[in-house]
């Protein structure tokens, strides 16, 4: 029988040992969502609902890349645990799910949030900036997110829609002067940004059709195409989401209407088009359309980043077709790993934000150019190259040098230069610090 005194000393020893174990396991500056073995990240994306086709591949692609990194040692020994929540592309649901991620799941940071309205709802209602919660690599091009004063903890991934519209304008002026040029645009901040860019570049349209988000369908597309055809538009810019682009192309094809299509980056993904039109051959509708991208085309297997990401996708997301959405997800994930590494061996939210500001512009990724992030800006990439879609739905560069058109979201000029980017880290595993 153990005496009471001995019992006490055993208990004390157990307590001390337990405390020591706990103390050694948790860094002195332990941060929410960071343990000795794990970094917990979260994202809300439309996994179901009308916006899900295509977009529902972005977050799983991020997870696949993180799994690849985890199998190769993680980030300074910590595995990345990405928690994915379905927001169905509804702002209120994004608020609800983000609150869950922060309050219940206790994530360290948000990554790859998708959709302007959703992220605006999150920033205003969940108030992640005042709570110092980082939101890395937003998958939206709304120019407002570059404002460091308002969105101090949010960081963009995509070039802004303003910049994209300025770049499209530059190309149209160079190549289609004198042609009747028309525009399909969403009647919200997405479209407002585009209109701002077209106006800044001095491009006017002979016919502009606006649609309210959520109303796009084959029926509404009939009215758009009727208006474009009636106005005898020779060049039509579809600055629209995938479902609207698909509806427009589908209806136009059926009607035999064949202008020169110029597609904004958001709505031009061949696999999404096939799903949206429920037609396995629908990518052919893209044939001949001009498009832009800030990364290589997802079907370009000669590209070292694409090749690596495809391998990761095959191993960690078996059965998932590699496309632009997967590419976007993996690129954001690769950038995230570099941000986490740059934040130090015991990352905090503050050190992560500081790392983004000081080192974000040096991160390697599949995108051409560098992130424009700094202490004074939250902007993402800034340039696009032009290509033409082929029958397989691949975007083929218009010139061998893959000329990059680069600009800002203000009144700066559009400049041209050959595409450049950092080489792929060995085995696609960042080693920066």
């Amino acid at each position, binding site marked *: 029988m153990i005496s009471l005194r001995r019992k006490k000393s055993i208990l004390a020893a157990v307590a001390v040992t337990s405390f020591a174990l706990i103390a050694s396991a948790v860094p002195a500056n332990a941060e929410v969502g960071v343990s000795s073995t794990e970094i917990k990240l979260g994202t809300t994306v439309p996994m179901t*609902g009308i916006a899900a086709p295509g977009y529902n591949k972005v977050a799983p692609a991020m997870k696949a890349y993180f799994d690849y990194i985890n199998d190769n040692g993680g980030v300074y020994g910590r595995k990345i645990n990405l928690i994915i929540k379905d927001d*169905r592309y509804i702002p209120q*649901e994004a608020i609800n799910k983000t*609150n*869950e991620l922060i309050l219940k799941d206790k994530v360290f940071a948000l990554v790859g949030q998708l959709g302007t309205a959703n992220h605006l709802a999150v920033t205003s209602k969940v108030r992640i900036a005042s709570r110092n919660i980082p939101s890395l690599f937003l998958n939206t091009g709304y120019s407002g997110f570059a404002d460091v004063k308002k969105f101090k903890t949010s960081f963009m991934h995509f070039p802004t829609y303003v910049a994209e519209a300025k770049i499209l304008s530059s190309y149209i002026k160079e190549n289609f002067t004198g042609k009747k040029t028309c525009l399909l645009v969403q*009647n919200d901040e997405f479209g407002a940004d585009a209109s701002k860019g077209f106006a800044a570049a001095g491009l006017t349209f002979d016919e502009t059709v606006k649609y309210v988000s*959520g109303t796009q369908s084959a029926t509404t597309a009939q009215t758009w195409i009727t208006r474009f055809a009636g106005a005898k538009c020779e060049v039509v810019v579809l600055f629209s989401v995938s479902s609207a682009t698909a509806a427009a192309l589908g209806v136009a094809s059926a009607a035999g209407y064949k202008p020169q299509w110029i597609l904004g980056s958001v709505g031009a993904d061949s696999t999404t088009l096939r799903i949206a039109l429920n037609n396995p051959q629908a990518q052919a509708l893209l044939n001949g359309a001009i498009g832009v991208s800030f990364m290589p085309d997802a079907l370009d297997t000669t590209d070292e980043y694409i090749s690596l990401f495809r391998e990761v996708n095959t191993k960690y997301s078996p059965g998932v077709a590699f496309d632009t959405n997967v590419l976007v997800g993996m690129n954001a994930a690769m950038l995230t790993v570099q941000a986490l590494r740059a934040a130090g061996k015991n990352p905090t939210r503050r050190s992560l934000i500081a790392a983004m500001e000081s080192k974000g512009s040096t991160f390697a990724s599949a995108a051409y150019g560098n992130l424009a992030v700094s202490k004074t800006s939250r902007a993402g990439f800034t340039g696009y190259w032009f290509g033409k879609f082929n029958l397989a739905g691949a975007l083929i560069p218009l010139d061998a040098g893959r000329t990059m058109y680069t600009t800002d979201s203000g009144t700066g000029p559009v400049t041209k230069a050959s595409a450049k980017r950092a080489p792929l880290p060995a085995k696609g595993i960042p080693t920066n610090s």
Partner: protein
Amino acid sequence: MRNLMSLKKRAFAVASALAITTTALVAVPTTASANPVCTNKVIFTECVGATTDGAGYVIQVPARFSGTLFLFSHGYRYPINIPASIPVVGGYTVINTPQPAPGQNADQITEVATQMLTKGYGIAGSGFARQGWNADSGLKTNVELIGIIKKQFPDVKHVVAWGESLGAFITQALSENNSNLISAAGNLCPAAGSVEASLKMAGDALWGLKSFFDPTIQGGNYKSVLEVYTDIGRVLTVLGSLQAAFAANPITPAWPATSKAPAAIQAIPSRSALVLVAAMSGVPTQSASFDGATGPGAPGSQTAIQFAAAISPALGSLENIAGAAILAIMATYDIEQQVGGPVFDNTATNYATQLGDGLFEYSSALSGLDAAQGLLGFLAASPRAKADPAAVAKMRALVSHKGVFNVPTLTLAATADNVTPSGHAQWLAERAAQSYLASSRNKNSRLANSWRSNNVSLWQVTPDSYTKFSATGTPLTQRGVNGTGHCVTTTKQYLAIAEILAKAAVEGKIVPAGAFRSSIRKAGGLTYDRGFSVPLMKFYQN
């Protein structure tokens, strides 16, 4: 779609929450008395009386008394009788009955009071000498009442002040000005800051309804109660018309016949104008029945998504805005009577700024950017309300808060409260953090949002999704959904808060760990996270 009767029930519920009567129906002396009349009720002693201002009070102390007594301050009660002929809220008579415990109705007040006594807590409450906005007189009444309590029951070791809505405003004022009298404070569904901050949301909402839907709504500068009754009638007529229009065509509901908006504006669905009014004012678009996230039909279908994003916020706004608008009319009249002139002034208000990112967040509900900007343009050109500077000066001289926390304080707010929005609690939380950081010792501390600032915020957060539909896709009316409505608190939640406050009173601090977390977990529906945050009221955003 719900019918007018259900709207009436809901609006009445709001009115009831604001103008609650106490259970006890305690007979109190009608004139002030130095000594209360006490009766031994076997398991507790009850004393009734009136303070020198004539406010009736009741004190109940159990036989097995813990030494801690809770002084409750009730919320806003209408200051005027409302004839039965007035729809929805008619038949109300001014009530000065003391209320010793919180609750949404007589049954719940009784239940909470009984449980409090059973747990060994004393309870007390005044009916206050006047109804309406009575923070100044209510504060004095409570100070005097605490003196009476301590004299009558010398074994009271700790007084915990707590209150709901306007009662929380009085409680915070008591804490700031007379902290030596109390040991802890509970601000439940609080109004906070100032009367001006408290009235702005309702004033903006009422002005928006007037501008879009019926310019004959007076909205202020009331010369008689008749004008008040008329305004209530006009607002309810507008809301009834909108409800009927929603029922007939939820996608493109017609505008009320009373609207004088031009055809170009009326070409935009009226639901979008309603959402704009709510969003720019700060009235939640989530309500007890509408979560803004769910729609009929298959989950994820276009029908479900469109309803959730475009229709649900409008129906939620409609369900919420009756309470805000009626409060605006009654409280505006009340304050105007107290300070001698109109006090609501929006001549300098930029509603586009106030809407902020709501312009994009509610893009679908607002029918797109062009429609939203058209509606904002119409509002920008609409006649504004101008206040009397002398009256405003008097209003600003009424008791207000500094946002300091002299005793351990617990604040409870619902994220979709339609009468005192959760931004009030957020203001208190931010003031607490600022005060904490103001000390040179704490200026670099990351603990400003913790209990060290002497204010702990609890939140009732709406569930992920909760709108329910009939088999034919009709949304069903609900009540009591956590995080929605005004001062919708369960008995378990009240009692958990009481336990936390009693412990805080004894220990001199609220530490949100251990027993605290156990209490809120058992109560259910309460969220504590020191980083949780909601938008401030629009009053502070423009």
